[in-house]
């Protein structure tokens, strides 16, 4: 059974149909790339999965449960995590507090008020910062980081709660080649415990880390399969890869 199953997803904004019955299926521990030309509906489908947008039609199920009507917070509590396209770290807070904020999200109100988990979460905070090569900046405000480091911090925040599914919307946007390579290295180990859906324009990056790809065009699925299958697909080459 797939971990994530989105079927017949339609999203209409006024007179614009952004998604016209898109589908997406992601297995446990699978890295799944969502690609397509600009305006093909990748980010909209991602938002429908994460709960930032409610589909006009269609359904989204996660770990066997229908989550179409759930709020983003409820989806997060079910084990889904999102990294936004635009970097959304909390600039005034330290890196340490950014991670702690993500880690303590599911603590009870009483635990938060009495700061009961502050000490217990310390090791996890430092582990996440070390994993993303940010431990030496733990005390700095997030605003002091470079763009690439802010992207890493946000991925670390999204991963902090140990989600079963991580949704990454253009994680390497604005990064240098070296930063992209490091991002690939940082993401590789999470495969042991987490599935990944990634929207990305950098096809080399996608090819390197993804097991399967779904190609969207004009709000519909053009093709879905392994990286090799997609690379061999003539229709994909025609509308997308050749253009790239």
């Amino acid at each position: 059974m797939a971990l994530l199953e989105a079927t017949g997803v339609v999203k209409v904004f006024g007179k614009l149909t952004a998604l016209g019955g898109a589908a997406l299926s992601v297995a446990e521990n699978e890295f799944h790339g969502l690609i397509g030309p600009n305006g093909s509906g990748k980010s909209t489908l991602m938002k429908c999965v994460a709960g930032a947008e409610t589909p006009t039609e269609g359904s989204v199920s996660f770990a066997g449960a229908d989550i179409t009507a759930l709020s983003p917070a409820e989806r997060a509590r079910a084990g889904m995590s999102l990294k936004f396209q635009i970097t959304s770290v909390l600039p005034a807070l330290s890196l340490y507090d950014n991670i702690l904020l993500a880690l303590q999200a599911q603590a009870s109100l009483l635990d938060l008020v009495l700061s009961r988990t502050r000490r217990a979460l310390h090791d996890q905070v430092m582990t996440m910062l070390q994993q993303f090569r940010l431990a030496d900046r733990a005390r700095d405000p997030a605003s002091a980081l470079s763009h690439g480091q802010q992207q890493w911090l946000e991925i670390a925040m999204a991963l902090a709660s140990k989600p079963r599914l991580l949704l990454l919307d253009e994680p390497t946007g604005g990064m240098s080649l070296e930063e992209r390579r490091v991002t690939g290295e940082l993401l590789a180990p999470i495969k042991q415990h987490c599935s990944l859906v990634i929207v990305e324009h950098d096809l080399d990056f996608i090819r390197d880390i993804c097991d399967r790809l779904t190609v969207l065009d004009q709000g519909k699925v053009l093709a879905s399969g392994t990286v090799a299958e997609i690379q061999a697909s003539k229709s994909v080459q025609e509308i997308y890869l050749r253009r790239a």
Partner: protein
Amino acid sequence: MAETEVAGLAPATGQTTARWNVLLIVEAVVLVVALALPMVMPDYLTVFATRVAILALFALSFDLVWGYAGIMSFGQALFFGAAGYGVALLGRDLNISNLLIVLPVGVLIGFAFALLLGGFLLLGRHPTSMIFVALGTLTGSYAADRLARGWYYLGGQNGIPSIPSMTLGSYELDEGPVFYYFALALLVVVYLLCRFLVRSQFGLALAGLRENETRIAFFGYKTQHLKAIVFAIGGAIAGLAGSLYAFHEGFVWPNMVGVVISTQVVLYVLFGGSGTLIGAVIGTVIIEGVSFWLSDNYREIWPIILGVLLLFVIMFRPLGLISFVLSERERVGRFGIGPQKGDHGAS
């Protein structure tokens, strides 16, 4: 390596401690001055200082709601005034003025009103916009003002005069040094409770709420619930202030629930510096103090002078007067225990 880590940690720790000391020093100075005031001031000024202490308590309620949770409440006087009217009715109709009863009742009234209004304004399926909450609270305050003016049972335009003195057993708490120290003690206790709250992990969640509500919803925070809780706590503090104010002044009137006092408390906090607690207290003291002095010395033009002064501070020092001494880093605060000497990679 270990030496480098330890050496690298020391200055950062030192800086943090030094920054924290600024806030502590400001708080200590304000407390010492407040404790000494009745000893050096004539009685009529002690009465004035009591009023300021109560208004500072009221300002804390708004700072918690706006400065920490980012909820723009333009109707905070609704909770302040509703509690004032509630305890005034207890005194007038039931002859109840024991502070062990009236103050908790005032807190409950403020809490209940804020919970009701907050539930309506904040607990939708989707987060509500700042402008919706600002206009909703403003409308609530305005409607309460009109209701109080038109309701004969509440005394209409004249309000409820001659509220009996607050009592503890047979002791009557009249205006003067004892009432001042009582109000100051409540202000200090509420201040410390608020400080504990905003520096806790709950405070970190509030910081997240204020900085990027959408982001933290995707972590799993029930942001609307957090907002409603803080709004209700703010209402409870405003209720405590309102009930104290009613007994101190001896009467309540429709302005107490209206937009004028709702706006006034916004100015106290913006002037002193929002999101710092002590800024709310300092803002209240300075605005009320300057108003008092100006109205005595420049009777014709004092509102204009005060208005220009407020405008200058808010335009050129948007973080308030407290930002002259408090760094942004200290204003935001630190919530986790931070990297420790033994942490690998920490500097």
